[in-house]
């Protein structure tokens, strides 16, 4: 079969603008918005493009917003605010894609009409042409504005700068890069080298293994999961290497009783099952019944069993059966500032004021789950945050109040983690593993 040459049309652009608008102006997450904006009218090819446009526009949003403010003589009317997102989508393309400028401008003008703003066609045309004329000057001026230059909101830049004075610029830069696709090979079903070979033979895809995390493969390019060999039968799963290191560091053994707190969507639960050769007694806990459905699906796919409990990790009295756990994984709710490269909506949705509520929750969960851990057992506290207030500070405060707790060194993280500024290990975006930002503190409870 063949197709007539398809170019990105106005409909795709309008769909992308609507999604960006829902994130920026309605505070909704990409996870909710993406499925909604992908209407039936879009082909799979368009879907890929719409996603690329949405991610690109959000990654560059702080810069685009600056440029738009300079290009508009007066602010947009409230009812036309969606046009800001449409312009953001187009600026992303003009700045970073190899689409010819004229094609971008003409399709954007049409997209304004698709969005029900035909009166704004002239405005859109003028703004974009103005940008093309003054491009160099505008971009030079933008470099003087921190948010536009580092493409992150000022509150986050301030926190990064004070937390990581030597590396904050590299963290910001890495957070705006597209993330690679990492997969986890189920070593109970196949070996990493066999799977690597299978990827090459079946779908002509190269993948790089990692000495730090056995079982991880970094794909040379992203593919849809349905083309991954044996995906449906659980031979592999999609998971960043940083997340894979959580279960790897906790190292569950057959016969042990394990708790995965804050388990949804169940990637780490499945990994715990695989690493214990399907022999551990795993409990997966999450506060959301809806998200627990994802855990069920994930476990079914890899053929693993777990006891699923909908409950609050900070309040074990509501769900715990009184039997202590050998190992506990607490992947705590956090600012997710380590995974901005995968979720460019995060810095735009979060507010500085969210952080203190999160640290409070993290402290309460850690203290509560410590009580369900056996003496001699291990608890791994992780977050996908790069902010020390959610990581080192939480663990340090906990250690002060718990003399029976000590932090174990984790050798495999030692040479890839950032320099120690407190207990535990911090992977920062831009690290040699090419992983997400992630924090790990492996705590051991003294035997009685």
């Amino acid at each position, binding site marked *: *079969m*063949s*197709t*007539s040459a398809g170019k990105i049309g106005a409909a795709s652009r309008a769909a992308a603008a609507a999604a960006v608008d829902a994130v920026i102006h309605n505070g909704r997450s990409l996870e909710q918005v993406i499925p909604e904006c992908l209407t*039936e009218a879009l*082909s*799979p*090819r368009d*879907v*890929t*493009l719409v996603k690329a446009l949405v991610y690109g526009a959000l990654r560059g949003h702080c810069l685009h917003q600056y440029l738009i403010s300079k290009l508009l003589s007066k602010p947009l009317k409230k009812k036309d605010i969606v046009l800001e997102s449409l312009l953001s989508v187009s600026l992303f393309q003009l700045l970073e894609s190899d689409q010819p400028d004229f094609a971008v401008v003409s399709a954007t003008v049409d997209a304004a009409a698709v969005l029900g703003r035909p009166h704004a066609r002239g405005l859109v045309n003028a703004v974009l042409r103005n940008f093309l004329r003054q491009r160099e000057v505008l971009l030079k001026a933008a470099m003087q504005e921190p948010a536009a230059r580092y493409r992150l909101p000022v509150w986050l830049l301030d926190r990064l700068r004070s937390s990581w004075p030597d590396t904050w610029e590299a963290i910001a830069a890495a957070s705006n890069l597209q993330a690679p696709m990492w997969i986890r090979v189920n070593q109970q079903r196949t070996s990493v080298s066999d799977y690597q070979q*299978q990827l090459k*033979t*079946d*779908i*002509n*895809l190269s993948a790089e293994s990692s000495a730090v995390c056995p079982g991880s493969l970094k794909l040379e*390019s992203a*593919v*849809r999961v*349905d*083309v991954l*060999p044996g995906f*449906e039968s659980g031979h592999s799963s999609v998971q960043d290497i940083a997340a894979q290191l959580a279960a790897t560091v906790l190292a569950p053994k057959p016969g042990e009783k394990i708790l995965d707190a804050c388990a949804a969507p169940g990637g780490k639960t499945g990994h715990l099952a695989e690493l214990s050769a399907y022999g551990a007694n795993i409990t997966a806990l999450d506060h959301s019944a809806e998200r627990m459905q994802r855990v069920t699906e994930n476990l079914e796919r890899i053929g693993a069993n777990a006891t699923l409990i909908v409950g609050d990790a900070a309040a074990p009295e509501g769900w715990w059966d009184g039997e202590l756990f050998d190992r506990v994984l607490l992947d705590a709710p956090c600012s997710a500032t380590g995974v901005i490269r995968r979720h460019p909506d995060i810095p735009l949705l979060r507010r500085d004021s969210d952080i203190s509520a999160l640290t409070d929750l993290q402290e309460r969960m850690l203290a509560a789950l410590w009580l369900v851990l056996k003496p001699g057992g291990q608890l791994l506290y992780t977050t996908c945050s790069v902010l020390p207030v959610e990581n080192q500070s939480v663990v340090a405060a906990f250690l002060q109040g718990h003399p029976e707790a000590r932090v174990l060194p984790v050798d495999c993280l030692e040479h890839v983690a950032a320099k120690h500024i407190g207990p535990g290990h911090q992977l920062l975006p831009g690290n040699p593993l090419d992983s997400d930002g992630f924090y790990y503190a492996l705590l051991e409870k003294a035997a009685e």
Partner: protein
Amino acid sequence: MSLLKILEYPHPRLRIKAVPVAAVNDTIRQLVDDLFETMYAAPGIGLAATQVDVHQRLLVLDVSDDQNESMCFINPEIIARDGAEITEEGCLSVPGVYEGIERAQHIRVRALGRDGNSFEMDAEGLLAVCIQHEIDHLDGKLFVDYLSELKRQRLKKKIVKAQKQTSVTA
């Protein structure tokens, strides 16, 4: 690897019904590789063995935007279908013709992979369209068969005329 010649409508051999592949061996895998090479070079997004005058039930496709998601279906069967959608289709065996064709919107297909292992998958959108289009080839059917008699005759005349002209100048 080699580029194979694609039969063009109204070539009578496009009407042969293909037989199931008996065993997925190296010969078949070689054919799969050649089909991919031929498809990408054309350029197309799907190619059935029938189109290169091999009458065995196998097809290859890649509907991804970056042309980096190759898929191979050996002895494919559609085991479920629902919905209806019209998509503009073209065909490497009917060059230059693009027409809206109505097909099932969602399908579930069972086939063997390049490794000979059986798999099932759900498809929708362009992927579903392409799979149905290519399976039709294996049954000796072409997308122009769905057009009205009048339209098809007109197309046929135009294509035959174009083919004659090319053979004169060649």
